[in-house]
């Protein structure tokens, strides 16, 4: 598959990059808002942040990074027409996503059990708002991974189909990248 035409080639299609940059701009605005409000109440935000478990956040980050690795391998397997390996790798990525979702649900549960909810204070308003919005993206991305796992069971060298598959992979990497920033802002910034 290596040829001159792959040099400087943009993965996926132009359309998915509009989607991805659009979404990242939206989240950037949210991150900016978060930092602004944090600047107005640093001690309050730091105290609230201490209520979160960095271990859970880190584990979730590992889950998503691993899932991205599987998805990258899956796309490569798709290129090579590996109709057994590719679906399995997408499913592996999906499994990591499921682990992320379950752990996030558990984290929410531990917070609710301590009486901390979306309305508790500004920090937790952002925490729940950001993570819920991100979770929505994880759910949509999981649907995409499932569709890719099913679609790659049959081999196809049609370039448009591959562009779509690669675009799906790019969307998942965006979901992962957004989480890394969310993790840093919500759990680590001091």
């Amino acid at each position: 598959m290596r040829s001159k035409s792959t040099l400087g080639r943009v993965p996926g299609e132009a359309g998915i990059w509009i989607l991805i940059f659009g979404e990242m701009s939206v989240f950037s605005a949210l991150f900016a808002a978060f930092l602004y409000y944090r600047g107005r109440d640093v001690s309050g935000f730091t105290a609230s942040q201490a209520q979160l478990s960095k271990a859970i956040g880190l584990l979730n980050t590992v889950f998503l990074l691993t899932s991205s690795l599987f998805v990258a391998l899956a796309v490569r397997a798709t290129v090579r027409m590996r109709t057994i390996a590719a679906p399995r790798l997408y499913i592996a990525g999906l499994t990591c996503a499921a682990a992320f979702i379950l752990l996030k649900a558990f984290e929410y549960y531990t917070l609710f059990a301590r009486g901390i909810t979306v309305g508790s204070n500004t920090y937790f308003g952002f925490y729940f708002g950001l993570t819920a919005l991100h979770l929505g993206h994880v759910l949509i991305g999981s649907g995409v991974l499932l569709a890719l796992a099913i679609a790659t069971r049959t081999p196809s060298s049609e370039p448009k189909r591959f562009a779509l598959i690669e675009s799906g992979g790019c969307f998942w990497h965006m979901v992962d990248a957004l989480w890394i920033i969310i993790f840093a802002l919500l759990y680590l910034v001091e």
Partner: protein
Amino acid sequence: MSRDFSTTIRAQRFLLWLSLISAAIFFFSWAWMMGFFPPPSPSLSADQVVALYSQHIIRFRVGVVLALISGAFMMPYSLVVSMQMARLEKGAPIWAILQLMCGLVNAMYIWGPVLVWGVAAFSIDRAPELTLLLHELAWLSYITPLTVFPLNLLAIIMVCFGKDEEDRHSAFPRWIGYLTAWQAVQSFGGPIALLFKSGIFSWNGLIPFWLPLSLFGVWFGALSFTIFRALRYQQQQASAA
């Protein structure tokens, strides 16, 4: 390969124009006459809400009337979209039917809340809490029912990426598919407004209001453009045949 709907091209064009003009009238009525652009804050008290309505009560009520007349603009739009989808689908046009169903239900959430706002303004000298209740009911009905919208958009996305037609003259080029997908993802921000009374997640905030509205405007315009383009091409094909 595709169904022949060429006899309906004029009707489709008419319905699309009708939809665009109604949408413009609706936006003018809702945004300026009712004065809801930018939206009022969800943290206003009952008395503040009554004062807000009382300021230009006649203009508000007339705005409601105009908005109710023009508020069905998504109905003809959804029909034209479905017609364009149906001509591309092989066999039973399942995605077109799904889109039409969802478009129909979705359209109700545009004029339904306007009616409730009208009732709120109808007897403005009632107990303020009652007016606040109607005001909140209308706003949350307008902003939060995500419900059928992602399904509506999913149907369109399926046709964008599954069609057997060149993007150049199609009503559903691939870039519309991605724009629609972005719209679908962003629309999930709506229901969040039920949890916040201020800030970026409230009904006048970035996530439930500004983003979905801007994206909807862009998407509505873009899809209208590609449909007009497709209708022109289909008419040329029909007269050449």
